[in-house]
């Protein structure tokens, strides 16, 4: 615990560096494109339009657990995909981040955990840029905001801690086991379907197989994504208990991930 506190203080000392690197990440991402920064908004907008066309006009799925129109299904799915994209691209990028920045670790003195922090944070910013599109479509698709939308930052915080914990763990381990990258990309597909993004836990079919539902509730991402649904889609109070436990799990993962990272830290300059 003492180590963790010292590490966090060190991290805090380097906040300017983190901010600058996040800025660099965002700038470099759209450098050389014509629309530049607008891609941050355009990407989710196009995604939302695709969902609307595919589900609203073609597939036309209807489930009372989600809503009585297919448009609502598109909104529901978008509401889950947006935070999921933040989570999955953060994790996948974390796997590479120490290797890509190997020359920094070898030649310049700074705490290496800055790098996964930058990865998760710059993806958070991308998520936040997509958020206005989501907020814009909520009323259009026939939902209205409630006061519970104000709990959104809580959900984002839980997801940030969880994602960062996983990011630290993955980035440190991948230095020694390069194939984690490949394992991870498969795992992410599996994980995506284990999270209620394209379906809802409230769906009737799920109630008939309680063991599947139990398994799904063991997935921390389930409760995080459910949190977004509560805040923005259903407009109800977030499930405090479930999200609370998830936060605890996230903190433990963060602590464990940081501990592994710390233990392997000295091997990075030679191994990356």
């Amino acid at each position, binding site marked *: 615990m003492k180590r963790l506190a010292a590490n966090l203080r060190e991290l805090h000392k380097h906040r300017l560096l983190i901010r600058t690197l996040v800025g660099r990440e965002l700038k470099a991402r759209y450098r050389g494109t014509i629309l530049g920064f607008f891609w941050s908004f355009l990407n989710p907008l196009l995604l939302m339009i695709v969902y609307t066309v595919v589900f609203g006009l073609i597939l036309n799925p209807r489930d009372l657990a989600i809503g009585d129109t297919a448009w609502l299904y598109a909104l529901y799915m978008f509401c889950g995909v947006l935070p999921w994209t933040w989570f999955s691209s953060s994790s996948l990028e974390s796997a590479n981040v120490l290797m890509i920045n190997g020359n920094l670790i070898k030649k310049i003195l700074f705490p290496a955990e800055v790098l996964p922090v930058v990865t998760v944070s710059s993806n958070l910013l991308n998520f936040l840029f997509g958020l206005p599109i989501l907020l814009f479509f909520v009323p259009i698709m026939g939902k209205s905001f409630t006061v519970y939308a104000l709990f959104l930052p809580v959900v984002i915080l839980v997801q940030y801690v969880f994602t960062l914990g996983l990011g630290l763990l993955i980035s440190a381990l991948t230095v020694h086991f390069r194939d984690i990258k490949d394992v991870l990309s498969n795992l992410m597909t599996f994980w995506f379907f284990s999270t209620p993004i394209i379906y809802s836990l409230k769906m009737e079919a799920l109630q008939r197989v309680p063991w599947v539902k139990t398994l799904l509730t063991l997935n921390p991402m389930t409760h995080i994504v459910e949190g977004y649904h509560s805040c923005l889609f259903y407009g109800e109070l977030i499930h405090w208990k479930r999200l609370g436990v998830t936060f605890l799990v996230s903190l433990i993962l963060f602590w464990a991930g940081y501990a592994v990272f710390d233990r392997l830290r000295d091997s990075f300059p*030679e191994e990356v």
Partner: protein
Amino acid sequence: MYAIELEGVSRVYQKYSARHRFQTFKSAIVRGDFFRSLKADELVTAVDGLSLRVEKGTTFGVIGSNGSGKSTLLKLIAGIAKPTAGTVGVEGKISALIELGAGFHPEISGRENVAINGIMLGLTKREVQRKFDEIVRFAELEEFIDAPVKTYSSGMYMRLGFSIAINVNPDILLVDEVLAVGDAAFVPKCLDRIDDFRRRKKTILFVSHDLATVAKICDRVAWMKGGRIQMIGEPKRVVDAYLQDVAAAQEEDFKARKRAARSEAEKAAGAEETSGEAGTAETEAGGREKRWGKREAEIRKVVLRDARGEEKHVFHPEDGMAVELDVAAREPLTDFVFGIGIFNSLGTLCYGTNTHLEDWEPVSLSGEGKVVCRIDRLNLINGTYYLDVAVHRRDGYPYDYHHNLYSFFVSSTRRDEGIARLPHGWEFSPGIRLKSQEK
């Protein structure tokens, strides 16, 4: 007051075997040896129980051959690598010129990279803004500062990196062989800046293979060998000791190569009985050498000796050299000339002469004998040289001609240029003042 204090510092690197390289997460889980596999298979000691104190305000040089632990030492002092044992104490802000431009992002402009790199090296945002113009001016990149760094040439890249690092204004500057890539105008500028540091009584740790510069700018020099400090003290003395060691190693290397060539020649001789005698001459493997002539008179062996008569292959420009030829004549001869020629690595003849040119009238040659050509002072510049030796008729008909069959090395810290180092001195009228840096 010491700026850098190392106490019994060791750094052991973990070396993973090839098998480990292919160790995968899957196999680690399958075999259940997850944690054991994180352990190294073999250890390499880069720095071995080293203690070092560098006084504040001194310029301290570190020399040594590749792999002697210099860079690891620098990384330990910079804090990039942690010591396996011992303590590293550093007083003041450090800037390390270990690799210039590490951390530049190719896609974004030089301007933004300056800001990011400056912050990485420990500047605040305001300091970066204040020093920005100076950084750009020093790097001479005013016109290109808004272009993405990927469009920079390697020289521009290096200049910008150096300029940022030097403007961090550290108390201790670590320089690791970074001046090797600058052009003729930029390197003096960098050295000038380092000089400026010295004047301001900052501490500099200078790692370089450029021994002349080390001897010139350093107050004290340490010579590292095998992770330990072999010698520490006054620059000229340490550099000389190091050079002697290098010369000895080269000598060893030459001998080993000669032995290899000899066994090869013996093999060739065994295969070709008829030319048995030809095979006994020592030759060195390589493409440029040739030997021709019918060998009415033969040069059987060539030995290079120093002034004390010891066989040698590495010489200083001031050294004398004796070329000793073992000669054997198949039949008594009355028309013969002995000659030698020294070529540099470009194939330029640096000096050539023979007994005929120097008015020695041949009288008779029969049986075996020795011919020695004694050179009082080599007066050559640093480099590898190839030797021709020959015995031929006055009209040029060759008995035995060895072209570039032998080589020797002239080792010098001076960087004078050309073919020969002419004996010379300098004089200045009283109005012109220069200070000799020869210590």
